[in-house]
């Protein structure tokens, strides 16, 4: 048999549970308690509202450049829901809904985009990493964490996120390759939102799907409708269970769409059509999930109003807390090492003298 096709031994599948027009596949519908369904909806809506508020704060000059998550809430929320609290959660920067579910306070998110290191304050008790900016670099430490989970025993898993654009980086490749070699409990979730700033998915790789990249690492690949919260939960549960029980890594491609701009510094009109956005709007995860809950009679106007009011209250409190954040001007010099070096002590003294000499004192940080 001197010329024959090469067989591929890993699983490569695509999965959806609830279609955009509300058709539910009952066989695949994940078991989620009703109370959780409501909480999930509330979290998704809270993420949307927080996102909108951040955009507004940015426009008012009360926040820095902001990167919205609009339209991608289901992908990170479904993943977060499928995890245990002490599993590891390694975000990039579009996992707002997932972070809220994990327990991150709204104002911490604001602080991050408002230019405060306090925005990286991982809530106590959570095994979460802060936002990661260098694209795909987080795949590597996500892989390392998964490795630590495996070596420690105890069945913890690590979920790491990446964007479709990030799959072009060497870090993505190296991390998944290691995860395969050591059979690590890593679930790598690629939020394929179809754009890396102005570069469409089709120009980032010639592969027809991101999921098929799993073949390169001999691991399973699962493409899932990332705007279908139920499908994301189902897919993640499957991958997490497998990872927890020694079955190794999975690459999940969550197909979603960036309904907003890349960041507030970006003008998507330069590179994509309104038509494309309009095409995706019906697949927005929020109304889809809402309709599902309505069908299940878990939402009515009354409940929705309560939810909205609760979110508004939380949001107002968060904005207040955010805007009250003070800046400790010398703190950055005290966290370079566990023990400051003599040189850093000297530089701290230099800075303190400089700050003291400045009259009138520098006004408080211009958050507002």
């Amino acid at each position, binding site marked *: 048999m001197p010329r024959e096709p090469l067989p591929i031994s890993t699983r490569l599948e695509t999965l959806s549970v609830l279609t955009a027009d509300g058709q539910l596949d009952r066989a695949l519908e994940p078991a989620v308690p009703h109370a959780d369904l409501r909480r999930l909806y509330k979290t998704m809506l809270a993420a949307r509202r927080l996102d909108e508020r951040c955009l507004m704060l940015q426009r008012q000059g009360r926040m*820095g*450049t902001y990167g919205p998550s609009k339209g991608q809430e289901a992908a990170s929320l479904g993943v977060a829901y499928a995890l245990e609290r002490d599993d590891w959660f390694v975000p990039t920067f579009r996992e707002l809904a997932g972070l809220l579910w994990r327990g991150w306070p709204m104002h911490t998110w604001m602080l*991050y*985009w*408002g*230019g*405060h*290191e306090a*925005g990286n304050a991982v809530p106590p008790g959570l095994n979460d990493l802060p936002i990661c*900016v*260098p*694209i*795909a*670099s987080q795949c590597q430490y996500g892989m390392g964490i998964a490795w630590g989970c495996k070596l420690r025993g105890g069945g913890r898993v690590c979920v790491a996120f990446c964007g479709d*654009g*990030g799959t*072009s*980086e*060497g*870090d993505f490749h190296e991390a998944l390759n290691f995860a395969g070699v050591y059979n690590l409990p890593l679930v790598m979730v690629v939020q394929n939102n179809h754009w*890396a*700033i*102005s*570069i469409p998915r089709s*120009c*980032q*790789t010639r592969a027809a799907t991101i999921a098929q990249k799993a073949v390169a690492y001999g691991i399973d690949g699962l493409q899932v409708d990332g705007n279908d919260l139920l499908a994301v939960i189902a897919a993640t549960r499957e991958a997490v269970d497998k990872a927890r029980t020694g079955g190794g890594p999975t690459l999940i491609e969550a197909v979603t769409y960036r309904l907003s701009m890349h960041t507030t*510094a*970006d003008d998507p009109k*330069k*590179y994509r059509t309104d038509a494309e956005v309009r095409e995706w709007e019906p697949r927005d995860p929020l109304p889809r999930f809402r309709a599902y809950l309505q069908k299940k009679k878990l939402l009515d106007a009354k409940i929705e109003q309560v939810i909205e009011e609760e979110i508004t209250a939380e949001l107002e409190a968060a904005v207040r807390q955010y805007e009250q954040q003070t*800046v*400790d*001007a*010398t*703190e*950055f*010099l005290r*966290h*370079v090492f566990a023990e400051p070096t003599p*040189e*850093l002590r000297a*530089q701290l003294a230099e*800075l303190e003298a*400089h*700050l003291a*000499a*400045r009259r009138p004192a520098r006004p408080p*940080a211009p*958050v507002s």
Partner: protein
Amino acid sequence: MALLTMVKALNLALAEAMRADPNVLVLGQDVGQDEGVFRVTEGLLQEFGPNRCIDTPLAEAAILGAGIGLGFTGFRPVCELQFDGFSFQAFHQTENHVRRFRSRTRGRYTCPLVIRMPYGGGIRAIEHHSEAPEATYAHLAGLKVVIPSGPRNARALLRAAIYDPDPVIFFEPKAVYRSFREEVPDEPETLPIGKGVVARPGRDVTLITYGAMLRVTLEAAEELKDGHGIDAEVLDLLSVAPLDGELINASVRRTGRAVVVHEAPRHCGVGAEIVARIVEDSLVYLEAPVKRVTGYDAIIPYFQNELTYLPDPARVVRATLETVRF
């Protein structure tokens, strides 16, 4: 003559070079349809098409690797890295290959690349968008490292970099991109790489700087004059590799005193090299220690506190006063 921001001046230099030489290509993330995240490549895709203004996937090392190979086939690639903070993803290609091919092959293969990137702090950006890694590149033999300070010299230096037969790291101070406009002549202009200029003549002390810190230092010089009667000479180095030792030493020999200003961290920064050059050539002229006003040896704070980190005129004035009063 046109009154241009640095962004527009750089854009002009690119367009001129691309018009003059069909081998000049621009490649990088979002340089095409999006015209660059700072719009430096505005209009290039439209004028020169997708084979000369090339949008790439997100992979810095591949952008440089592609640039190297394109260079071997006779092109003159201008590679854009989206931010200096992400240039490290490609650092091995720079260290292993870009800077070495001429020496490795004794000139048979060369890397006439320009590697452009937005540089430095001061634009209230998120982490990794405010670094100043010029010393990291300047230490690598085989690279030229250029840092313009204003629209006019940016345009002239980018032109020089594109025509240079060797690789040039071209740092574009973000804080200067749109902060002011300058008259830029209609005719293409070139500045020699490796030569600095006297940005402000003076007699009492030499303030040595480059990039966005030039404006800070010039402001300090005004304050020194007005507030303290001190007449500071300000040097704008424009390039940190090669370094214009002649200019530096000539000035310091006249003034006997020097202060170096840069936004990068102090330890093993370019400031140290400047001091070493002064000591080597002009020790006997020195009447006071050379002070370094620099970023601190810490991670640059997130933007709420960024201005504490960056040298400001007050710090330059303080250091200069100490130097003059030594």
